[in-house]
């Protein structure tokens, strides 16, 4: 049976601020789920709620239909937003220690720690103190700490922040591989292009409420049709400004991006473009995730 994390009706207030407001969504196994929202939207609070690090005013977090206890949490992996490792402890010892806290034997934890350090390309730092590592390598070790016990659910708060392209590639690949190996993977990020590349689905929250959720492809193809048109000699896309039932969302490099109302046929747009000059590009486009996000949080 596939694993499933379910969040239902989560509510939590801090004084007069509603950090979570009837938040519900689920994270199925086998795919990477992006958890998006502006700063202060409630992402970190949600993640802490999954691990029982704060008390909820209402709602429940369930794993495979059951409430989550300490036994279940041992099978979860967590990478908090504010990275946390013992600065003066050796990398290998630290991972082994964290593995043992999750119920592994000393030997299994040691082997797993070394395995993850190799996979994340920092095995040569196993006997270094954490504080001597670069930011990027500390980030990799932090991810290894979340993975060392082979968790069924992986919750990562901004795992890609501050990484160089190589680090992003390595960690991104690990997340995808883990999801495809049957884990539930939930991660937050403000790097929406990366999320679009890595995630199969997303949950977007704002002011503690869910404002959009679904598959990335599904969300991108939802809403009005979009076309990108380039007409030779009309760099300002003046031809498009005269059309009815069409709005011009962007003109860049002589290319006009148009949003069509439901009743507007695409032939009408193509014919209008041809009438204006030689058409060198006419392509249907889907929304970028960044557009989906901006639209969702501006409601």
């Amino acid at each position, binding site marked *: 049976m596939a694993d499933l994390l379910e969040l239902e009706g989560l509510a939590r207030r801090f004084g007069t601020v509603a950090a979570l407001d009837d938040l519900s969504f689920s994270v199925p196994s086998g795919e990477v789920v992006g958890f998006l929202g502006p700063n202060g939207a409630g992402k970190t609070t949600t993640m802490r709620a999954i691990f029982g690090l704060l008390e909820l005013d209402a709602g429940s977090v369930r794993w495979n239909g059951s409430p989550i206890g300490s036994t279940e949490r041992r099978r979860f992996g967590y990478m908090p937003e504010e990275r946390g490792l013992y600065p003066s402890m050796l990398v290998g010892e630290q991972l082994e220690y964290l593995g043992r806290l999750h119920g592994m034997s*000393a030997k299994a934890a040691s082997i797993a720690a070394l395995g993850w350090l190799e996979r994340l390309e920092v095995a040569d730092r196993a006997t270094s103190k954490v504080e001597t590592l670069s930011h990027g390598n500390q980030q990799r070790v932090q991810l290894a700490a979340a993975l060392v016990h082979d968790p069924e659910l992986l919750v990562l708060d901004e795992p890609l922040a501050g990484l160089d392209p190589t680090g992003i590639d390595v960690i991104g690949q690990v997340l995808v591989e883990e999801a495809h190996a049957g884990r539930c993977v939930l991660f937050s990020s403000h790097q929406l292009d990366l999320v679009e590349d890595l995630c199969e689905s997303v949950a977007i929250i704002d002011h503690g409420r869910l404002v959009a959720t679904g598959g990335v492809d599904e969300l991108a193809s939802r809403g009005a049709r979009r076309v990108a048109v380039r007409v030779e000699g009309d760099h300002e896309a003046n031809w498009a400004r005269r059309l009815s039932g069409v709005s011009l969302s962007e003109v860049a490099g002589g290319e006009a991006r148009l949003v069509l109302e439901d009743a507007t046929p695409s032939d009408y747009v193509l014919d209008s473009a041809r009438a204006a000059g030689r058409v060198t590009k006419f392509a249907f486009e889907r929304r970028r995730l960044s557009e989906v996000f901006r639209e969702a949080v501006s409601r």
Partner: protein
Amino acid sequence: MKPGVVLAVVAAAVVLVRLTLRRRRRLPSPPLGGLRGRWRESDLLGETGLVARREIHERLKSRMFRVVSLLLLVVVAAAVVVPTLTRAKAGPDRVGLVAASPSLRAALQAIAKEAGAEVDLLTEPSLPAARAGLAAGRLDAVVSGRGKILVETPLLPTDTSGLARYVRAVSLSLGVERAYAAAGLTARQAAIVARARALPVESLEAGKAPRTTAESTALIGVILIFVVLTQYLTWTLMGVMEEKASRVVEVLLATVRPLQLLTGKVLGIGTVALAQATALVGVALVLAEAVGSGLVGGTAPLVMVATLVWMVLGYAFYSWLYAAAGSLAERQDQIQSLALPLSAPLIFGYIVCLTGVSSGEPSLLIRVLAYLPPTAPFAMPTLVGFGQASWWQFALSALASLAGTLGVAHLAARIYGAAVLQTGGRVRLRKLLLGSAH
């Protein structure tokens, strides 16, 4: 005194400590496993045991611990050995006699007894020979039957040693005898006058009895408890603060409950503290036996055991409070204002009991403080040192301390759980307990 044995014991202790605390080599294969296989009991205690074991491992590894341990070892060894060295130096003084009649010899023996001095009277062939013996250090003083007394260096008025007391008494006695003879007293009359004794002077208040060995041990114990508690409670405070500051606590609390984490930390650091204190007491006992110190006689060992018991109880009581205080801070400068109010009862109890031991009589205040958990770790060992605590009083005080510990542990776990994940500045305790902080 047996200097060879002393040196051997000190050397063995130092080597033992060095071996125990030696930094473990980091072997290339296996690269990990630094925490493995030492204390299997941690498996029985689950996550709490693992947390405690990490604390023990990290503390033993630290340079600070090794330096402090060696320093304390040296101080304790000195406290045991130095008094015996001083005592040995004050052994029988050798007094050379020149042209001394049997009656003079008898009189000199009597004077030694009167003055409370231990002297060996050695017959010398001549005054020059005796003078040479004095210069060479073979003799400590010379008395001639022809009315001459010699010492190597002038006697200072402040010198209260046995030899000084004896020489002064001989000088006075022989001078008086000479005066009797000059006054024309018969031998019988002179003897009657010589037996004259000063009239006793009575005081309204009783005099202070000299400190017993048990009281001295209590004094050392109270100081040791203060030093160990101060050191390890500070470690507890800093340890919790550092876990919060480095944010590792959020990773840990995702798996371990706050009470488990807190208990593991308190247990781990407490184990190191107890091990260090036990080692110090053990070394003190072995050294005391080797050098014939009074520490192993009478009720002194009982006072040592009481010291260890109250060190544990004191740590147990205070460690929770210090750990909770550590969870309120995330910077060094915030620690100062948190530690001050916590250490106030600790310092108060320490000073009151230190003064009590020095005055030679436990005050009523000490008798009251012995039943209050914050001050009992100092007051109860003090009463034991004075022999003024029966077993049921000891047990009652220990029970009160344990009950107090349960209370503060409950409070500390509540504070810790609520405060340790709050970042961005010092958490205010009042807001926290009122539940309005976030």
